[in-house]
Structures are given as C-alpha cells and as structure tokens.
C-alpha cells in the first residue's frame, strides 16, 4: 500500500530515519525492528574519521533541540567495511550520508563508496556483501567549521560539488540542503541541473543559545543546529517550494514527529520523508509514523500516496 519506487530503489514505505539520529541502524532495535522502515540514512560520514566537537553537544529549546556533534564518525572506509556490513540483516534502503570539508574530500569519499559497491557486486571480497543503495550528499552540516555547509549556501558552491561528485558516482544521489541557503529553491534547481537524482531537505538551522550566568555561548562552536517540532512549519514551506520547482523526487524532513506531520510533508510534495529528533522524544517514533500513515490511508480510503502528494 505504501510501497513506492524512487532512484530505481524499492521503498516499502516513505519513512526514513534521518542521518545523525539513528546511528548505524542497530541502536533502536530494542524498540522495534528497523527493517519496518523505508530506509535508514546512517550517521554522516567524512573521508577521514572525526572526533566531533568539544563541550556540550546537545541542549533543549522550546519545541526543539540544538546539537553540535560536529560529524563525529569513523571515516568512509571504516563505515563501508564495518558499520555498513553490520546493517546487512536490516531489510531496508541503506543510505550513506556523505559530508566533506573540501571539494577533494567529497570526491574521494564518493569515489570510495563507488569502488566499494563495484567490489561487492563483483563478489571480489567474501567479507563485504552490503552496498550503499543511495548517497545523501550532505552540503548542509552547520556544525563543522569550513564544513560542507559552505557548499550548500550558494548555487555556485552546490554546482561545483554536485558536478564533481556526480562524475565519480553512478550510485543514486540525493543532495541534502540547508535552510540557511541564500535561496533554497535555486540551490535545489542547481543540484538537479548538475545531476542530482533527488533533493533532501532540510538540515538543521544554524542557531544560537547563550548561558547568561556564564556569559558565554552554550556551545563551544558558538552556533549549533536547531531541529525538532519548532522548525516544522518552516521546513514544510521549504519542501513545498522546492518540490514545485524540481522534477526529481524530494525527501522532506524537519521536525516530523508523528504520522500526521509526515502526511503534511507528503501533501506539500515530498516523495519520501525522514524523522530525526522525533526518536529522542519517542524511541518508537519510526514505528508509530509507519503505522500511523497506514492507518490514515485506510481511514481516508487512500489507495496510493500519489493521490495526496503535492495537493497543496
């Protein structure tokens, strides 16, 4: 009923766990089987391993959270040979979220993923069996200085990185955009023009919180990424604008915590949706959203989500 095909991949439902909130797929197994999800976008990876940012990394705001993890990750190579392989028993679309600090690190990271998939498909290794189904190119992490967001703010930045990564990547690729972009619709159109197979939006908003007693920013990095229900109405508007401007599939996200939220994003034009912060509010969020969409479809006698997609 909820099954659909995008990027030549079959999604059992439109619900995907957002990168950075669902680890490498294993972490929420105590709550539900992650194979019920349409997809899992694994924790963002970069060419080299990163320790992440110092100081406080997460705090609560009204209706949201701010995070400054700073892309702590084991590096592309370790991800491909270790964490990704451990995901083999999860029957879902496996998405690698790839960030970078320079154009070269994006290209090299993408090249390693491409090579890995070829190696697995050629049965070149007995230890490697799981491929990356989709790359989510992260040009929107606000928490790394000199980080990927530099490429996501302007059309020129996006053009350069998407064009060069596309040259080395035959795997389907969605580009994850920042709400801090000068003009997110134009950035989306640029990505589409340069060969992106999909657009994923939005990443967190760059934001600030101050500890007035200590007279300093709460985060060592000063700014941090705002997510959660607080950003949902803005995210929804951006998803609607972008999905009207591009022809490629749109993965919508930003504060989705319930099935009702997810359906709003689909009505605004999203083909697939992601939930993130929701898992911190409710560890069963992914399961609740999948079941909630199905229940809504039955209730409203909706046979396919295409009937309601983009109706607003």
């Amino acid at each position, binding site marked *: 009923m909820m099954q659909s095909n995008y990027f030549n991949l079959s999604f059992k439902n439109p619900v995907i766990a957002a990168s*950075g*909130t*669902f*680890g490498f797929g294993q*972490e*929420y197994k*105590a709550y539900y089987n992650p194979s019920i999800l349409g997809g899992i976008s694994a*924790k963002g990876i970069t060419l080299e391993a990163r*320790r*992440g940012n*110092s100081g*406080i*990394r*997460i*705090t*609560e*705001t009204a*209706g*949201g*959270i701010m*995070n400054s*993890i700073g892309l*702590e990750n084991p590096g592309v190579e370790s991800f491909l040979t270790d964490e990704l392989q451990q995901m083999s028993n999860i029957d879902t679309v496996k998405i690698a979220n790839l960030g970078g600090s320079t154009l070269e690190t994006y290209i090299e990271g993408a090249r390693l993923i491409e090579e890995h998939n070829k190696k697995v498909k050629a049965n070149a290794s007995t230890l490697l069996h799981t491929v990356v189904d989709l790359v989510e190119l992260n040009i929107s992490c606000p928490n790394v200085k000199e980080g990927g967001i530099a490429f996501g703010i302007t059309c020129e930045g996006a053009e350069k990185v998407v064009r060069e990564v596309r040259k080395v990547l035959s795997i389907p690729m969605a580009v994850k955009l920042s709400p801090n972009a000068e003009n997110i619709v134009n950035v989306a159109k640029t990505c589409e023009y340069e060969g992106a197979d999909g657009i994923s939006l939005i990443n967190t908003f760059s934001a600030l919180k101050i500890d007035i007693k200590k007279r300093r920013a709460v985060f060592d990095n000063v700014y941090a990424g705002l997510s*959660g*229900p607080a950003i949902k109405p803005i995210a929804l508007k951006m998803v609607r604008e972008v999905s009207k401007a591009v022809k490629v599939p749109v993965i919508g996200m930003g504060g989705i*915590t319930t099935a009702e939220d997810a359906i709003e994003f689909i009505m605004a034009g999203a083909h697939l949706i992601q939930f993130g*912060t929701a*898992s*911190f*509010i*409710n*560890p069963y969020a992914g399961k609740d959203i999948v079941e909630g969409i199905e229940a809504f479809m039955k209730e409203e006698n909706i046979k396919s989500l295409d009937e309601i997609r983009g109706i607003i």
Partner: protein
Amino acid sequence: MYKIISNQQIGNDFYIMTIEGSFEAKPGQFYMLRGMGSFMTLSRPISVFDVEEDKIAFMYRVVGEGTKYFSKLKEGDEITLYGPYGNGYPVSEYKDKKVALIGGGMGIAPLFYLAKQLDNAEIHLGLNSRDLTAEQKQYLGQLYATHAPTTIHIDTDMSEKLDFSKYDAVMTCGPEIMMYKLTKMHEDVYVSLEKHMGCAVGACLSCTCEVGGKRVKVCKDGPVFKGSEVSYDDAIKLL
C-alpha cells in the same frame, strides 16, 4: 506512562520521586524520564536511586526546566520513562570487598542502591552547606545508613580527607573534578560520568568522550568506567 507514588523534597532542590511499577535495574544504570507529552523534546537521564518489588525511585536535583517540571509532579500524576540504560557499577566482583562509595552533589544518587547490593561498603556523601538544612542532613544520613555506614562531609574535599589505603576499591559519582582527584588516590576507582544526552541508545553521539584511548558513548558503553582510563578533559580545563 507510570504513576507517581510520592515526590519528596529532601534537600534544597533535591527530590526523591517514587514511581509505581515492576522494574529491573542495576546500580549505576539510568532511565530517561519525561513529561509534558512531546513538549519536552529531550528526556532527562536520571540514575536509579532504588528499586523495590513494585516501585522504583529516582533522586534528582532541580537544575533547569525539565527537573523543575519533575519537582512539581504530585502523587497520582503520570510520568513517562524509558530504560534502564547503561552498564552500571561492577557489583558482583566487589560483593564482599571493602568498597568506598563516594558521592558529590547529585552524584550521591546512585550510591544508595549500590550500597544495598554490596556487603561491605562505606558511604561518604559530599555536599555543600547550602544543599541541606541540619534536619535534612540528619534525614539523609539515616536514610543511607540503612545500607552501610554513612558520613556526610559538608564543604570538604574528600580526596584529601579519607584514608584510601583501607579500601579494595572506590566507586564514585559526582563532579568530574572530584572523580579526577579520587582517581589519583586509589588504583581501583570506578567513576560514573555525566553528559548531556539525546537518545540514550548510542545513536546521536551527544555524549561521547575519550576513555582508554577510544571514543566511547557514555550512555551505552558507560556511564561507569574505570577511573584510570578516563581522560577528564573537562575537569583538567578547570584546574
């Protein structure tokens, strides 16, 4: 949702909340507590104070909006909790050993249940004079003394005051600076680290730090670690 049996103030900003239900947890493990439906976006990691057959208790301190909300809950109100999470203290290895349990500030919370499961523990609670009135100090001392001999140290640096040579091990929880100092006093120290947490299951990497030369997740790999392996980056910054 679970029903609150009582929510008792036991010090200045210190409370013990008792919740009805059947729970199984180890000393040093924690639960994620939350209220206000989805309006509280992050649950609060609170360590287990005590577990009995049909109830669980948490000792917490009011430090922000979340804990302020907890402090206003009354008997019969409902609360959501997930858990238990984390590894807990190594109880079975030290069951009959002489162990000093040293808590500082809110770090006294896990030591009650820990003392209950050890046969030969000695409790030292370090608090500030502003934390407790004379009556509250007496009450707290008597409460902890039900499980092991208890001394309350007010405005004291316990790392300088105690004779550590008589213990087989030290298990501690409290400010990182205190645990850092204690780690230098004894070779067998177990510390419980505190970090801001998001998911409690090792997914968000909000609480990672360096232990034994590796990146660890405090929520999942900890919160209890061998003191000698912890890097104490934040504490050393304060020295």
